[in-house]
């Protein structure tokens, strides 16, 4: 039993090093990845909801069926963009 304690301490120490390394070196990079993926998603949401934003959408006929799928994300998007309510009533809030 007694020899397990140093091993556990060693394992805990290693986990702490891994976690510190992750926070110090990897976190900014993961944030970059998240930022990139968020940008792509926002582009998709903006394109799908172009008409809700008052811009004519030539692909509107096809993207209409994506409205229910993306409505929640559109809600989050317009709130992030500083619009408390959706510009087009009836799209989400």
């Amino acid at each position, binding site marked *: 039993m007694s020899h397990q304690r140093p091993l556990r301490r060693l394992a805990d120490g290693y986990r702490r090093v*891994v976690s510190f*390394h992750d926070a110090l*070196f990897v*976190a*900014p990079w993961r944030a970059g990845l998240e*930022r*990139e993926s*968020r940008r792509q998603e926002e582009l998709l949401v903006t394109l799908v909801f172009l008409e809700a934003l008052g811009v004519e959408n030539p692909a509107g006929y096809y993207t209409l069926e994506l409205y229910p799928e993306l409505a929640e994300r559109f809600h989050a998007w317009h709130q992030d963009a500083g619009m408390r309510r959706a510009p087009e009533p009836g799209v989400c809030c």
Partner: protein
Amino acid sequence: MPAIVVALTVLAVFALAYRFYAPYVAEKVYGLDPDFVTPAHEFEDGVDYLPTNKHVLFGHHFTSVAGAAPILGPAIAVFWGWGPALAWIVLGTVFAAGVHDFGAIVVSVRNKGKSIGTLSSDVINGRARTLFLLIIFFLLTLVNAVFAWVIGNLFANNPGAVIPIFFEIPLAIGIGQYIYRTRKAALIPSIVGVVLLYLMIPVGQAFATPVDAGATAVASALSLEVRTLWILIVFAYAFIACRLPVWVLLQPRDFINSHQLFIALAVIFGGVAIGGFVMEAPLVNSAMPEGSPGIFPFLFITIACGAVSGFHSLVSSGTTAKQLDRDTDAKYVGVMGTMGEGALATASVIAVAAGIGGAAAFSERYADYGAASAGGLGYFTEGVGRFASSFGVSAELGAIFAAVVVISFAATTMDTGVRLQRYVVQEIAELVNVKPLARSLWGSTIVAVLVPLGLSLVPGGDERGLAFGRLWRLFGTTNQLTAGLALAVIAVWVARRRRNPTAVMAPLVFLLVMTTYALFIQLGEFAADSDWLLFGLDLAIFVLAVWLIVEAGLALYRAYQDRAGEGVVGAADTPRADQRDADRR
């Protein structure tokens, strides 16, 4: 004097400054408030706005601001002797950079994490935004030009670094893909990646001669200097790299670089501690040839990064401020970040001044400013090689290691610089109504590459780096002007809050005097040499400097008038309830 004594003295001064001066700035000048809700909490989104532990945030900030510039500037400035170079590094770090970086974080935190460019418009006026854009355009052009020259020069003089540096590209992409796809902890892949990179150093050394012969053959077939060939290759790389998404190459490279930064610092300071090296360069160089640039003002622009750098305000306000957990953490992150950079600059001074083989070796290396400019980085890599030999590694391998570190930093800076420059070009094209350029990423990328490429080819021929030295000084001037703009924003913000802005005003005035004085002297030099390209560049930057002085002066005058109108002049440092409320806003 033993180099270790110099290193410990600098670190001791930094510790004293952190203990006594930084709290004064935090409390009396910026009025930090532990209860202030930072943007990281107010707008937390898990990506940009994210409350982060202050030690971790210091790591992010330090690795973002440290690069090749705080190594190169001090290595050149030892031309005036290691004493003046070190004195400016220490005083600049404590009284200018500490206040500047720290202040940029605080002002940004109090303004929803806005960047310094936006803040210049909000705090000073709309014209300041255009001024900021133009200063950044010149800064990025000069950054890309000097770093391309630096990389080309290092490749030409250290062909052993070519293979490791080119190996780093697929290595970075591979590590990036591994971590991205597996989402596992990155410690082991990082160690493996860095070990693999450094295993390439002996390989690079073994193939140095054929690589050099190949480069020489291609260069002579194209009637180019070897350095010019490498500069062209570096810009081709930057053109391709900046078209890739950041997470494919730039970020994994940056990730490897941040490991290299700490390894390099450990090798230098560890080597100095173990090796018992002595400072052999003169404390003050009294044997400078006639016509050499004077300490006043040129020392203060030759060392920009490492003493005070305007580039830091972009990182402080754009990124760090959005992750600050508590308002009071700004002191630790901002001041310690600058001191980390000051330590790197100190390491550079020690590397070129300690154990070099006596005063005669110094006189030969630093025969004139041109030789110092062209050779500075080479002397640094040799110095690191000497320090690495304290650990039993051959000095030659150690020098290649240092070259790999510096080239990695410089290449990443260039990649980022060209990326940013594209947007600046597009924004300026929009301002002057050149729509095709404003709407074309290809067009703006070509401009962002061709303009610095043209400049970096100026220092060719047999001028022994004289023209490079001039470019470097222009880069330093533009960097200091960026710092001046940030300090002006901070000073106005402090003055409006009825606090005493002397701690901010003093470095602001000093930097503006030194930069305009240097630009003025150089105008005469360039005109005398009929160097009309650099004359035009210098004149443009001079106009920006005068413009900045006028805008900063007017903004401060208005801020003081507002204070006088409110009848609170003289109550600068009196804690008041309404002042606390104003601060919280």
